[in-house]
């Protein structure tokens, strides 16, 4: 067993300075990479979107953003991206919470199998799942043929509609939250649950009053992981989604690659980044809280 050392703020022991310096030196290389390859280009890019061409050269202004917000098509894409992301997040979280709860309270062969199955999507690339879903859910695909065997002939394929990418996102995003929530649930002690049962609490009450409060943090982390993955996705909405509205990843690629309008693509990128950073903010705050909670 190791004894946790007091960290930075409380440390006054001799050699603490050296230890800190060593720590900083260790992260110097990745930090330098992060700054030169990601942070600086990002700042330069954002600065570029705030320059509006005028008669006397480029001027500072919000013109590019006003154009984005004034364009009904861009706004429809923005709303669609946000809606698609939130809907897939909510569904994936609910499903994975269910699976994690089942796994928390079950043992045996079937539970192991379900655990393995729930992790399976982690190892399947987006492009593979996309083409597999086209064959499975697509017109005259396996699902439709099976349904017609039992007499259901009103199947309408979700392929190329907003439901197509939604299904792929949910499937793709089950494994991580199952792992994160599983870890969170395993920390809830059996004693607490048994005590609640002894006092006559039914399953829903145990869920709401004992389990959920203790996995709140895991839920937030899982939410952030799914949200950030889905909002910036490209392959799934490209192959399975409708032509319009487009998710911002696809829209951005088309604006840059096909229409060759880098300035507009940059504005779209900043909008995407803003949405992602709100959720990243939550994520970091949650992580910091749990750090503090441990001290």
């Amino acid at each position, binding site marked *: 067993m190791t004894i946790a050392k007091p960290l930075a703020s409380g440390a006054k022991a001799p050699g603490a300075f050296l230890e800190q310096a060593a720590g900083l030196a260790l992260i110097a290389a990745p930090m330098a990479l992060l700054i030169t390859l990601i942070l600086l280009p990002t700042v330069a890019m954002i600065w570029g979107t705030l320059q509006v061409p005028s008669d006397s050269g480029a001027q500072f202004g919000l013109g590019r953003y006003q154009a984005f917000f004034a364009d*009904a*098509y861009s706004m*429809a894409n923005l709303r669609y991206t946000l809606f698609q992301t939130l809907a897939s997040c909510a569904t994936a979280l609910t499903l994975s919470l269910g699976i994690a709860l089942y796994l928390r309270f079950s043992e045996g062969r079937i539970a192991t199998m379900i655990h393995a199955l729930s992790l399976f999507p982690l190892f399947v690339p987006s492009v593979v799942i996309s083409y597999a879903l*086209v064959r499975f859910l*697509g*017109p*005259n*695909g396996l699902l439709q043929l099976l349904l017609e065997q039992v007499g259901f002939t009103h199947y309408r*394929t979700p*392929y*190329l*509609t907003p439901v197509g990418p939604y299904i792929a996102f949910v499937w793709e995003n089950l494994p991580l939250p199952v792992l994160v929530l599983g870890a969170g649930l395993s920390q809830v002690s059996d004693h607490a649950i048994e005590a609640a049962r002894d006092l006559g609490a039914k399953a829903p009450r145990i869920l709401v009053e004992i389990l959920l409060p203790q996995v709140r943090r895991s839920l937030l982390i899982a939410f952030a992981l799914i949200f950030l993955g889905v909002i910036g996705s490209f392959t799934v909405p*490209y*192959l399975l989604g*409708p*032509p*319009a*509205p*487009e998710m911002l990843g696809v829209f951005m690629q*088309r604006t840059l690659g*096909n*229409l*060759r309008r880098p300035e507009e693509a940059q504005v779209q990128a900043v909008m995407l980044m803003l949405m992602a950073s709100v959720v990243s903010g939550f994520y970091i705050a949650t992580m910091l809280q749990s750090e503090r909670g441990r001290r």
Partner: protein
Amino acid sequence: MISRRNFLVSSAVVPLVLGTRAFAQNTKTLQVFTDGDTNISNWWNDNIKPAFEAANPGYTFNVTITRGVGDGNGTIAARALAAMQSKTDPQVDYFEEFEADSIAGSVEAGLWLTVDEKNVPNLKLINPAAIDLPYQLPYRGSQVLIAYDSAKTTAPKTFADIMAYAKANPGRFTYGRPDKGGSGSNFVIRAIHEANGRNPSLFTKESFEQAKADGMLGKAWELLRELHPYTFGEGTYPAGNTPALQLLAQGAVDMIPAWSDQALQAMNQGVLPETVKVAQLQDLALCGGFAYSAIPTNATDLEGALKLANFMLSPEMQTSCVREIGGFPGIGWEHLPAELKAEYIDVIPVSIPTFPSGDWQTAKNDGWYKNVATDIVRD
């Protein structure tokens, strides 16, 4: 005693060295460069090479694939230009496909060999529609066609036929998104031509003006918007050439625009149902184009390169182009076997219209997304 490892190495190397020597004494090897797709490079290696060696004893060629490396054949052309200026060996004899004027200054420097009936006798067979620049050798082409299920419908002859079929059979026609593949793109272009008096000559690089374009394209958007509710899934256009072919293969639609080579190859491979046929519109064809080979004047073996050029335009190789890769011949159909012509009669174009790159393409793709694909109410 010789160790096992040394034995293995020497037994592998010795025949190789001897073999190359013996080979080099009687055989000249031409250097061919291609950056075309796999179907093209495979065709060159598997079909053309053995035929060329049989027809030209003492010659063979080596195909180097530059696809996806740097600027592809552009890099090799730039190297040939540099070699010309420094009077060194360019290490290339033949470009499978290259637009000679895409390397600035190469035409002026005299890098490209002018081909005519004197140095490439088979040029007398060429299809006049394919001729572009005097140093470009059109040897294969492709064009967008209408692929349809002959069990469900007859061949559409006009754009109006397609509109009529779609309206009478909702959800049984679709086309790919114009920015995601040439088949959908050229169908949208055909709609633009349809809405503007079927006159492709109105559209040139120089003729682009935003205000004028908005008006001309606007008429096409109205036409396509009229078609929109009757397409597969009421306007869920597939994202590319292959996804569109996939819908046809799955029997989800009866009619799509498709690239001639992709459709014909899919039919030969049995990927599409046997009842699927292809046809070209007769009032105005869908767009397409030719692939041009080019020979540098400083080619290491100019004589051999010209032999290869002439061989590629022979009726045998042009037949192979149709049979193996579903391409269009560079020479006139009248020089090909009569049964081949009979088999492909529905797809033989009367004319091959083109549409300019650049501003017109951008306006077309952007306009389609904002006016046809979306249900946002427009003002």
